């Protein structure tokens, strides 16, 4: 029974692992921390899995646990300096599509997002993942209106950071 549950869980996590990796990418600054957070999210997901009911989508449920772990439960083991090449990976595929200026702006934008506080970062993450405000508000535990207001403020803040003039 336990083995079946384990098999089911590992299969689902393997299929949906990108969600956790993306949370880790946004909330950590190097490979070591990334793996550390991934490990903690996996433990939290596995612990909560027996109570997971099929009525919600596994991925939706995962977003919540992964973000909760990153924002609240995870304790960074040590402070480490960000390694530049780690984040650059995301922009490798962009160079073919955009000119240098746009690519540079995207990098500035991405770095600005990484500098946001934990909560703002979570909002932006869900926005980048194309989640609607209903899901954002339910994940964060705030009203839809407040999620919208705060998101607009964060967007404004980011815009100013990218285009200071």
């Amino acid at each position: 029974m336990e083995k079946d549950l384990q098999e089911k869980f590992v299969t689902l996590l393997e299929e949906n692992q990108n969600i956790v990796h993306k949370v880790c990418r946004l909330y950590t600054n190097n490979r070591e921390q990334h793996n550390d957070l991934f490990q903690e999210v996996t433990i939290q997901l596995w612990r909560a899995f027996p109570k997971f009911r099929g009525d919600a989508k596994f991925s939706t449920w995962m977003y919540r646990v992964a973000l909760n772990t990153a924002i609240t439960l995870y304790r960074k083991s040590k402070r480490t300096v960000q390694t530049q090449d780690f984040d650059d990976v995301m922009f490798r595929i962009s160079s073919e599509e955009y000119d240098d200026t746009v690519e540079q702006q995207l990098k500035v934008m991405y770095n600005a997002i990484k500098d946001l506080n934990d909560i703002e970062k979570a909002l932006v993450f869900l926005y980048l993942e194309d989640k609607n405000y209903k899901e954002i508000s339910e994940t964060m535990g705030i009203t839809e209106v407040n999620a919208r207001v705060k998101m607009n403020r964060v967007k404004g803040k980011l815009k100013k950071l990218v285009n200071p003039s």
Partner: protein
Amino acid sequence: MVDELELLKKQWQKQDETLPKLSKEDIYPMLLKKSSSVVKWIFIISMIEFSFWMIISLLFRDFQFGGDLKLESENLRNFETIFLIVHIAVLLFFITKFYINFKKIASTDSARKLMKNILNTRKTVKYYIYSSMTLFVIAAVFTTALIVDGNPEAFEEINKTVLILITAILTIMITGIFWLVYSKIYGILTKRLDRNYKELKKMEV
């Protein structure tokens, strides 16, 4: 004008090929590892705090002054019994409350509810510590007063009020040091949580 966030969103959704890929064989061993979450630390530290004050109260009860002082007065015994009952009642109350709050913590709740439940659990311990410190001060002062009262000949040349006052000040100072150490531990454990919870609450205004 180009909306950079929209561009980034497109980019963000295309990053899959750059993400690490773990196999089932990589994931299985992860299930066996121990969590290092803040909730686990809160649980461990809280248990240490509960035990610490329990031991202090037991030590205090068995503490014997030297010399020829009469420590077996009826008043003193009555006080000790009442104090022990009160302390056990306080301890049981807070441990039950702590357990109920701790059980409520679930990573599947919304971020706000999860943070609120963790902070409430921690607050229970905080109030327990405050109660224990208060009881400690009361016990020290009352015990001194009762000992002085039961041994009038030994304290003949000393001003009783001054003696009790000195005891009170000393106990408050010792408790104050405990409080400083405690605030530090509490602060380290919940600093990030507090900040994030405030940030979420701010959105509701």
